């Protein structure tokens, strides 16, 4: 049987039932409309919250990379400004500094590690910075 060929009587039934259904939708009471509206607002809020959380999470790789760069910059500044490491290093100071900088920058893929290292040794960097600024010229 071909479904596309519809008898006129069936067509009339479809149209009449559709009209009756649409009218019943239009005549829904205010209480039901209000509850449906509240349900919709809750659903839309849930979608927005979820989308917002996801967009923040999607920035995390960029943020961790930025953190890695920041850690490298701090270490580089501390070493380049002539910290105490330079006195004990067997290699010339400038060369040692750039090697260290490369090491930290190389950990950019696992930038979380660089950040952890920075957090763990923050006292050391603080000390290194103070030491560098207060050290008398040799």
């Amino acid at each position, binding site marked *: 049987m071909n479904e596309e060929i519809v008898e006129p*009587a069936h067509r009339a039934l479809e149209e009449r039932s559709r009209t*009756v259904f649409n009218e019943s939708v239009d005549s829904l009471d205010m209480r039901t409309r209000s509850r449906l509206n509240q349900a919709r607002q809750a659903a839309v809020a849930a979608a927005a919250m979820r989308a917002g959380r996801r967009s923040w999470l999607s920035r995390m790789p960029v943020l961790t990379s930025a953190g890695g760069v920041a850690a490298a910059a701090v270490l580089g500044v501390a070493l380049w400004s002539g910290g105490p490491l330079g006195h004990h290093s067997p290699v010339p100071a400038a060369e040692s500094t750039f090697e260290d900088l490369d090491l930290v920058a190389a950990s950019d893929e696992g930038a979380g590690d660089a950040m952890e290292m920075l957090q763990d040794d923050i006292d050391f960097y603080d000390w290194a910075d103070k030491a560098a600024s207060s050290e008398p010229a040799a």
Partner: protein
Amino acid sequence: MSGFDTLTAAWMVWDGPAPAPRGVVLEQTRELDKFLAEVERRAFRIAQVALRDPDDALDVVQDSMLKLARNYAERPSAEWRPLFYRILENGIRDLQRRRSVRKRFMTWMPGPKEDPDNEAQDPLDSVADNSIAAPEQLMQDQAMKKLETSLRELPARQREAFMLRNFEGLDVAETASAMGCSEGSVKTHYSRAVHTLRKQLGEVW
């Protein structure tokens, strides 16, 4: 010192506001709100016809909206309609299944039994309505009651096919997607539903 400038810039990147996605999220949220506003009342009536209970119907529609919003909001909006009705029909079926399990369980329990004929009657239905309704409104209500009764007598799949195709205007492919069956099955269910309804309502309509 230029080194610290770089560091500041890095922290600005870290703490800066979310870029483009915020606008995208806003647009998507507006679109979802518009879609749900279009379908919520119709979905409620469909659920009410199937479940015979307005509170259950509201619960199912609410769940369906939440599920669509949580799981499929990022899909293209053209996909929302069949997805939403699929979720809705699944919710209706789950509730009907739970009811039948509860009814079976209740028959084994001592105490008063549920009267199946009286099961879905709202106590408020027996309260006299003193409001004066227009004759057209009364005719419309009567027509809807007859249609509802006939729809409830249909097998569930036929009822689903008829309501989704005829009331919601889903095409065969969308209806098949919403019902989780083949397009051929949709055509068969729909054709049978129309024939049965024609027999039942033919004299009145």
